[in-house]
């Protein structure tokens, strides 16, 4: 495969079968390796799409400053694209994310403004909105409500999945901005009647949920529950256990959120077996494990590794 530049190589990721983790010959798991994108995560898709939409609308010109609330991966993708296209990036990120995220953002030239660890990404969103109001010349792409985010999956991830796996019965992905599930999920529902769309949602420690009133929670504007058939909450213990199983069984070195997604995919698989149905379950490998080595997720007992994630925004 040949591309004119790194940015043009985003997407068209491999889909690989998981012969060892698939529970039966009739209930098969398939992993879409989004870690093969330029910065090593699925977020290269929405980041590039949001920037190019802003450019085509005349909202961005070289030298401009992009502002974005992010728990890390979107920021890293934006930083790479911004560097190549001549923009500055200010990433608003919760303080309690992995050290590698800070290092990668800095490496690609982004400026980081930390938001309070209490409240996780909700707090990053709140702070970024405050900064955007104070600095109207900064361009906030706002991945939580920007339809270029979900469209990148509607036009990319979804069609790629259906082309590689026409027999797909289930699609499982992580729920953060909801962009992957809304975009790819909607495409699959339109083109493959009966397909089931399943969300895996990371369950963090108490610190991340904050101490504010319940009415101050946050649901991304992109979210449309009608696209989903089921939504599973996955804690750090199960996420780490599955991340390690993916490495052990299939040799795939993935980040912790992928473990959470695999956990949900295996729940789906178990139900299919119980119902006596065959299934082809595709799920997203969001990123590789490199950014999480410092969290201790891959060494020692699962319990100790899960404990170490307490209070961290690990997905």
């Amino acid at each position: 495969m040949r591309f004119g530049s790194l940015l043009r190589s985003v997407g068209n990721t491999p889909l690989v079968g998981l012969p060892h983790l698939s529970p039966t010959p009739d209930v098969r798991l398939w992993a879409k390796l989004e870690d093969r994108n330029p910065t090593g995560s699925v977020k290269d898709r929405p980041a590039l799409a949001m920037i190019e939409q802003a450019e085509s609308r005349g909202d961005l010109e070289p030298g401009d400053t992009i502002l974005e609330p992010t728990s890390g991966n979107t920021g890293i993708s934006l930083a790479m694209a911004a560097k190549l296209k001549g923009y500055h990036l200010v990433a608003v990120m919760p303080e309690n994310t992995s050290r590698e995220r800070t290092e990668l953002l800095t490496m690609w030239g982004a400026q980081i403004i930390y938001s309070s660890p209490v409240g996780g990404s909700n707090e990053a969103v709140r702070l970024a909105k405050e900064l955007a109001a104070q600095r109207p010349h900064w361009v906030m792409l706002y991945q939580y409500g920007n339809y270029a985010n979900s469209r990148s999956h509607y036009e990319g991830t979804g069609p790629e999945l259906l082309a590689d796996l026409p027999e797909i019965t289930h699609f499982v992905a992580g729920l953060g901005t909801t962009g992957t599930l809304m975009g790819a999920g909607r495409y699959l529902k339109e083109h493959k009647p009966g397909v089931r769309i399943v969300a895996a949602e990371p369950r963090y420690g108490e610190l991340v949920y904050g101490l504010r009133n319940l009415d101050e929670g946050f649901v991304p504007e992109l979210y449309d529950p009608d696209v989903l058939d089921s939504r599973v909450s996955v804690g750090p213990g199960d996420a780490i256990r599955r991340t390690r199983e993916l490495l052990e069984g299939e040799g795939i070195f993935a980040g912790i959120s992928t473990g959470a997604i695999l956990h949900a995919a295996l729940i789906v698989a178990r139900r299919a077996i119980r119902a006596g149905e065959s299934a082809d379950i595709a799920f997203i490998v969001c990123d590789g494990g490199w950014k999480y080595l410092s969290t201790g997720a891959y060494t020692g007992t699962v319990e100790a590794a899960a404990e170490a994630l307490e209070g961290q925004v690990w997905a």
Partner: protein
Amino acid sequence: MAVTVEVPTVLRGLTEGQREVEGRGADLAAVIADIDVRHCGFSQRITDQAGLRKFVNVYLNDEDVRFLDGLRTSVADGDVVTILPAVAGG
């Protein structure tokens, strides 16, 4: 039916600081009503006339009840109900 309900930090003022409380009932609505008898105001913080409040997520054995039968979701002995504020990612 006795189920365990995991209480988020923001609601522990209503449960004397307890992280978990027990509730009884055939479905989620009944369990919440039962807890409200002992911890007054509990129900109102989680539900309104329309059902579950917008920024509250309730999971039955880790599954979002909005994709089951909402407040009418049946519960069984030993089930675990988790209540959490909605948070973002990305």
